[in-house]
């Protein structure tokens, strides 16, 4: 075998391993959302079901968590994008000698652990309230102890730094001569900013906003301290995991994954279409020839996946209305019962045999193993039952 073939195989193997490491957990997680087993698991596969989506949509705490997560996310986007933009503009205009110091200062929140940011935000605003002498129950006092207010500030304190990094990258390509040209043509500084700088920064603002929203949405470390009596999705999930989870969380994960892929593909498809249009405009590419695929799909794998995904979604909704997992569930339950019965009988038989031989060979020094405790379906063995709330008690008893 030639060495190039070997390298190619090794490279292929590497990609398979890399992508299964990267995407494997997501696939497994998504599959568990469709297994009727009460604990998130893939094997043993019980029944194909959509019931966890129903459980999810009926779970008030998750719904509320998502609601507050979105509100906080939007607040964080507004605050951190404006702070990041201001910080990056200052960075390009500040005296060169101060620049590195300023940069370090602005970037520091990224390096500080989120937990510290959370606690210090909480403490700081409490102190601010004290310092201003706001009376208990007054509007300011309520604000300084309001979970949404504190969480937006706490998260923005470091998400603004991320946003700034995005802006700085874009600003480095900005020609300050453009602002000067605008001023020279009679624009005020505000007009120059609004008509020249802001349109130039628009793509960066969009990506910083998406970044800020996602960072806010998935944040736990800071939020858990600043959220006080509210709940975000992450804190709700953390709470659920502590008390034992069911696959409705997998179904939420599946929805988020699907949405992410959907948006990413739509974005990519749009970008490619735009690039193609520009290429055609500049005469660098000819308009595509007619093929059997509609023009939207031609030469665009992202769009093909996109459409396939849409079909799957439609198919899912369709089958959900037709297909009922109830009969399967009953079957599975029965099969399980039979299996359990069989094992009990087996054990009893074994014991009988042992008793007989024990009677022959003298006293039995081994403790007879107790018959296997019949577990409720919820504890069918995944994760070594660590999430089974009964564990703590049984450990104590043993």
């Amino acid at each position, binding site marked *: 075998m030639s060495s190039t073939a070997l390298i190619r195989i090794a490279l292929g193997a590497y990609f398979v391993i890399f992508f299964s490491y990267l995407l494997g957990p997501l696939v497994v997680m998504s599959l568990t959302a469709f297994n009727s087993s009460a604990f998130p698991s893939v094997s043993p596969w019980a029944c194909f079901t959509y019931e966890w989506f129903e459980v999810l949509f009926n779970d008030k705490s998750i719904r509320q968590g998502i609601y507050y997560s979105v509100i906080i996310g939007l607040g964080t986007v507004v605050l951190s994008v404006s702070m990041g933009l201001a910080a990056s503009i200052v960075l390009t205009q500040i005296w060169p000698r101060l620049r590195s110091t300023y940069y370090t200062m602005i970037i520091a929140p990224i390096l500080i652990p989120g937990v510290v940011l959370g606690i210090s935000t909480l403490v700081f605003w409490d102190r601010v309230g004290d310092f201003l002498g706001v009376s208990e129950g007054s509007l300011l006092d309520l604000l300084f102890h309001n979970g949404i207010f504190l969480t937006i500030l706490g998260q923005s304190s470091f998400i603004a730094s991320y946003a700034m990094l995005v802006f700085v990258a874009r600003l480095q390509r900005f*020609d300050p*001569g*453009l602002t*000067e*040209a*605008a*001023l*020279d*043509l*009679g*624009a*005020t500084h505000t*007009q120059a900013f609004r*008509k*020249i700088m802001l*349109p*130039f920064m628009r793509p960066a603002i969009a990506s910083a906003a998406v970044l800020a929203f996602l960072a806010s949405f998935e944040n736990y470390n800071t939020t858990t301290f600043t959220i006080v009596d509210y709940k975000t999705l992450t804190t709700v999930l953390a709470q659920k995991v502590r008390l034992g989870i069911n696959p409705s969380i997998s179904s939420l994960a599946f929805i988020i994954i699907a949405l992410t892929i959907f948006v990413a593909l739509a974005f990519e498809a749009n970008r490619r279409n735009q690039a193609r249009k520009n290429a055609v405009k*500049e005469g660098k590419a000819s308009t595509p020839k007619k093929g059997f695929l509609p023009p939207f799909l031609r030469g665009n794998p992202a769009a093909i996946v996109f459409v396939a995904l849409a079909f799957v979604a439609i198919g899912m909704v369709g089958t959900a209305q037709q297909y009922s997992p109830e009969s399967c569930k009953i079957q599975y339950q029965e099969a399980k019962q039979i299996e359990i019965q069989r094992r009990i009988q087996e054990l009893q038989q074994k014991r009988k045999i042992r008793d007989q031989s024990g009677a022959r060979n003298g006293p039995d020094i081994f403790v007879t193993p107790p018959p296997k405790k019949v577990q409720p379906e919820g504890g069918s063995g995944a994760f070594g039952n660590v999430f089974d709330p009964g564990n703590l008690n049984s450990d104590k008893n043993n």
Partner: protein
Amino acid sequence: MSSGVAIDLENVWIKFGDFVAVREANVNINGGDFFSFLGPSGCGKTTILRAISGFLEPSDGRILIGGADMAGIGPNKRPTALIFQNLALFPLMKVWENIAFSMEVAGASAAERRKRADELLDMIALDGQGDKLPSELSGGQKQRVAIARALCANPDVLLLDEPLSALDLKLRQHMRTELREIRRRVGITFIYITHDQGEALTMSDTVAVMKSGVIDQIDTGHNIYDHPSTPFVASFVGENNLFRGKIKQISGNEAVISTRRSGDLLAQITPSQVGKLSVGNEAMLFIRPEALELSDSKATGKTSISANVVNQEFEGNSFSVFLEGDGGKQIKMSVPNLGQDNIAAAGENLSLRYDAANAVVMPVGELASE
């Protein structure tokens, strides 16, 4: 269109920390003039332009536009329009929006702006291209859009910062003509910054030659070339043969220089230095290559030089002959191409002569670095 407005720099100093970018500039620019600042890069000419347009304040002195002191007035309030070296067209705006930007910030309606932009597009021969983006235009077209954008603001003064330096030779020559044409049409004051003496001499009514922050000479292009007032101007503008020596004799505005290697040479004292030189002073004498000619006789007067031909180059409209005088003195002579095959063979000894009126003598000073 507004008519030209005069600009005066009174004793202007511009410093950046300890660095003096412009030293004691005194310039009077007449309304409607085409005025050029000529100098090597880093001589402070762009700094002067930025001070006139209001992007920086002079450290000392006054800038007057149309007689009004501009201190404390920002670039957006001055009646100037600047054409940037890199043009600085707004990349995200269409061509017509670029041109009408000054009206947009003044609050004009889209229809008004479009109408004016179309007029200007007509003027710069780009009609029908208004809906393109600047990136879709060629270099020369962008140049014209930048000029139209500046003119749209109805400025009293148009400032141009080496606007032609990025263009190729043919286009540059074409744009020179076009700029002159535009200037004739709008009749406003043009202030032009360049390091290209050709541009400065062909287009300007008046040229100011600058050297490291100091204005050496302000004069017409013709005078700058024929009567340079300092060795820097003489060596920076055009080509020149330099002879160093001591002044032997002065009579009126003529002087005889006893050069180190080429004997005694007669020359005119440059007008600004008449009466300031005295016998025995060190001096510099400049003779243009085209002022030298072949002499038939082997005369050894005070306006003739003997030299051996080293080599010659054909330049199209002329021959450049490189000679070596006594003691290895390098001399360049330019002979117009009138159909000769050859000027002289290498190694041939030639006798050169010149008119004393075409040679200038001046006190010793700094030269332009090659």
